[in-house]
């Protein structure tokens, strides 16, 4: 089991979960991700929550198929944008939820609105 802060293997794939209610338009009509799906919250200081695909399953990562969609992105693509991905298994001081696959994409500047767009373009909608 990886430890907190360990780099995620370059060859891994990552899952990013997004709210999928059509009226809210968080996603495009074709189900692909808008840049907002990959925009970190201000309180998260540039860290973006993902799951490491090899350490979880589609069903576990999506939590609720009626509310969310999963997007998959290769860690290599993340690294190519000068970002890093580190393991952040939970529970920990930030979250009480049991999720050994949890990881963080780090290195995004709070004012950076280009990188979320590039991540969204590289991500693929995953069907369970």
């Amino acid at each position: 089991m990886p430890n907190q802060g360990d780099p995620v293997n370059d060859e891994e794939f990552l899952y990013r979960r997004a709210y999928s209610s059509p009226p809210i338009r968080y996603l495009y009509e074709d189900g692909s991700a808008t840049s907002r799906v990959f925009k970190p919250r201000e309180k998260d200081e540039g860290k973006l929550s993902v799951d490491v695909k090899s350490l979880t399953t589609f069903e576990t990562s999506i939590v609720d198929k009626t509310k969310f969609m999963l997007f998959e992105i290769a860690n290599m693509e993340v690294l190519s944008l000068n970002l890093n991905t580190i393991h952040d298994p939970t529970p920990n001081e930030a979250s009480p939820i049991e999720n050994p696959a949890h990881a963080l994409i780090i290195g995004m500047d709070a004012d950076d609105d280009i990188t979320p767009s590039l991540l969204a373009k590289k991500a693929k909608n995953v069907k369970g």
Partner: protein
Amino acid sequence: MAALTTNLTSTSSIESTGSYCSNSTVQEIKMEDRPLRNVLLVLDRTRFCYFEKLNFIDAFLAIDFNTTDSGESIFLGQSLLGMGINSSHIDVLESFRILPDGWDGDDAVRPSIQVLEEAISFTKYLQSVGEKVYHVAPGPNGEIMIELRDGENAIEFLVYPSKFKYVLLTPERTSQGLYDPTLLPKLLETLHA
């Protein structure tokens, strides 16, 4: 009613699909030599009304030089320019007024009324100049994204609670910055290049 005069101040051409407004040129409308700001006028032979507030520009209307009719009917024709092309997106933005905090099933911040009104106003402005919006979406930090696309080129306008940004994305380059209305012509030129 105050006299309405027109003064040609710009020569930018507008392509219109409206039957009333082909071969149009942008003009600034002045009332008694005072520029009208933040209004779009709809006129015909019997009506004179404020149609829409626009926060980002002076009032610009298109004049059809092919017509031989009176100016009033020309203005009514202009009001059809772009009418409705962004109406579905405006409806979606209006629906965001009831988004709660945590609308994403997590802890996203709801867009404020001020952010929504700025986003709606900007979307209506884009409509008034015939620029079709591709998508609108809320963001996790209380922002609203208004996206334009043309082929592989895209512009994201991001109305945050404390700033208004643009992100330009083309296969050749990406850039971002604080939005200023004076940047719009160049941004749209790049989008449609």
